[in-house]
């Protein structure tokens, strides 16, 4: 916890108490490509406690979506192998039978995507699609399924649901479709909701509505949320903990407040510093030189090394995701000596206070 921060982040409490709902260990995904086998992600470790809201952040291609999909074993056709364990409430999803997986997918773990149109079937009404999800997983009659669908549509903020329930997806706006997707994903009362960029395609005012809905639902129904996004603002507004990925690995894991105020990994710090929100107007934006290495040219040792201002001898060694104390983890052996700037530091109070006031 940074100085002067209110110590009320709920994830702390959640993490100390119950055993995690989801516990991912050493997860790695390989794909077959024309250039041979690609290791898309590797050595991914993280936990999600019951009811906890965790953001997975990182740049395009770092492995966020693949990680989400692998939890539900929804990997693309050229999938070539998975290493590690995905323990969900005691069951290893990495090795359970397809039948066990079907019983969990959609019922106990649900997922929503960036583009709701592609996830909804254009030939069925939205009511039918939501009710079907329920009927596949539980023994309810048609009438009850419809009643519960109506209730769920109301819950996700669809006005006059009795008029909307028989609409087809194309008759709804983007924001309404995303609400319908959320309704469908929640109808079976899942313990974990994986949301992959659920608001990226939406306007900022509609995004605010959907984020509020997700937060509210997770709080009232104790559904854990794994929110995948490249937007640090979205994570700050929605989640209690933030897991940062880089080039197929988890590089930092901390509460949102800790990560924003005092990041431990040079990449997390660099990302925060490059946000225009945090720089004085019209000033130069700090940026991270170079670019993410492609899978084919992944360096040995620290994968951030070529771009890191703090790289020294020793960084060419493989970096482990190590315990940094207080439940934090970081994949950088120099973390303790670096004292990196975060969103407020060096304290350019004028800029940050201004942002806060608006």
């Amino acid at each position: 916890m940074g100085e002067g921060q209110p110590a009320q982040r709920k994830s702390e409490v959640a993490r100390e108490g119950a055993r995690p709902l989801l516990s991912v260990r050493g997860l790695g995904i390989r794909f077959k490509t024309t250039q041979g086998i690609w290791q898309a992600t590797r050595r991914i470790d993280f936990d999600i406690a019951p009811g906890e809201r965790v953001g997975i952040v990182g740049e395009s291609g770092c492995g966020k979506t693949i990680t989400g999909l692998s939890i539900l074993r929804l990997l693309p056709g050229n999938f070539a192998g998975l290493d590690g364990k995905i323990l969900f409430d005691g069951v290893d999803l990495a090795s359970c039978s397809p039948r066990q997986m079907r019983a969990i997918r959609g019922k106990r773990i649900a997922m929503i995507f960036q583009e709701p149109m592609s996830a909804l079937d254009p030939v069925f009404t939205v009511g039918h699609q939501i009710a079907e999800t329920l009927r596949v997983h539980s023994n309810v009659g048609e009438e009850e399924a419809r009643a519960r669908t109506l209730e769920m549509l109301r819950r996700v903020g669809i006005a006059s649901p009795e008029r909307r329930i028989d609409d087809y997806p194309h008759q709804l706006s983007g924001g309404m479709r995303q609400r319908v997707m959320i309704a469908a994903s929640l109808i079976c009362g899942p313990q974990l909701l994986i949301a992959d960029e659920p608001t990226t395609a939406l306007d900022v005012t509609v995004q605010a509505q959907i984020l509020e809905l997700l937060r509210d639902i997770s709080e009232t129904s104790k559904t854990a949320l794994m929110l995948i996004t490249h937007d640090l603002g979205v994570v700050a507004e929605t989640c209690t903990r933030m897991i940062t990925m880089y080039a197929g690995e988890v590089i930092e894991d901390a509460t949102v407040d800790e990560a924003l105020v005092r990041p431990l990994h040079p990449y997390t710090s660099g990302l925060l510093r490059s946000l225009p929100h945090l720089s004085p107007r019209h000033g130069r934006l700090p940026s991270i030189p170079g670019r993410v290495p492609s899978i084919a040219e992944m360096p040995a040792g620290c994968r951030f090394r070529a771009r890191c201002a703090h790289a020294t001898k020793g960084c060419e060694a493989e970096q482990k995701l190590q315990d940094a104390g207080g439940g934090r983890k970081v994949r950088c052996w120099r973390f303790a000596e670096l004292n990196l700037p975060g969103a407020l530091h060096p304290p350019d109070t004028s800029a940050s206070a201004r942002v806060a006031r608006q």
Partner: protein
Amino acid sequence: MTAATAEPRRDAIVSVRDLQVRFQTSDRRATVKAVDGVNFDVRRGETFGIIGESGSGKTTIGRALVFLLNPSAGAVLHDGIDPTALSRRQFQSHRRDYQIIFQDPNAALNPRMTILASVLEPLQLAGVGNSAERERLAREALERVGLPQEFGERYPHQLSGGQKQRVVIARALTLKPKLIVCDEVVAALDMSIRGDVLNLFADLQRDLGLTYVFITHDLAVVSHISERVAVMYLGQFVELGPTEEVAERPLHPYTIALLSAEPRPLPSSMRQESRIVLQGEVPSPIDPPSGCRFRTRCPHAQPLCTERVPEWRELKPDHWVACHFADRPNFSNN
């Protein structure tokens, strides 16, 4: 004097007067009023930001500014003259001074052409100099955007997104434009390289005296880079003023809501707890609401707002707004 009849300012590089752009829907049954009566001047050397949600008409304005489409009504003046009154030849050479760059660098670059060939293309089309001269100008442009010379021989797929966007910028620079319309130019770029590209725009402006119209849906980007900013809603400007003013003392309820909705990467102690969450979504531009177009979502709407279109007025020096009640005390703090 209303804005629509105002004389262009002396330092105006572009003057837009009562601009309207209408499109037929694909079934030809209805008309979309994509831009519906917009007035502004872009001042030489400034960065003029336009912000708004998708479909509000930002791209359409941008395309009209560089005559990629013709206004349905109203006028776009370049340096006080109407380019459509020029002869065809004069118009072709004139429009080189006004360039536009779009969001997706992949769509702008031919995958089968080398980077150098792509940058050379506009020079060839414009018939500038001889081939040695053109190559020198193209290489100079690549240099300007910070790409090493050997990139000239590469193909687009061998470049990262940020590098490709630099090539597109280089391409626009070869013809030495006075003004560049930048339409969501950093939206497709990764966070860690956005800063680089924004810095590049700032450098080029300083070195070459460029004027930008910077179109984006990203508040943080627009308020970082522009001197003045216009807020667009459903085909119209609802507010226009110095960025500092609009971001910190917004006058229009929509601007206030936009600022409040933006997710901020700040720790919980610094985040505002109460935010204005607007109900519903933007109505269709085919049949916009009567009176004030924002009234269906405005938390302050009154009966008058249904009946009368709010006037576009300069409430504070250089700070324009279209809202009947924007001058009420404490209005913006609600």
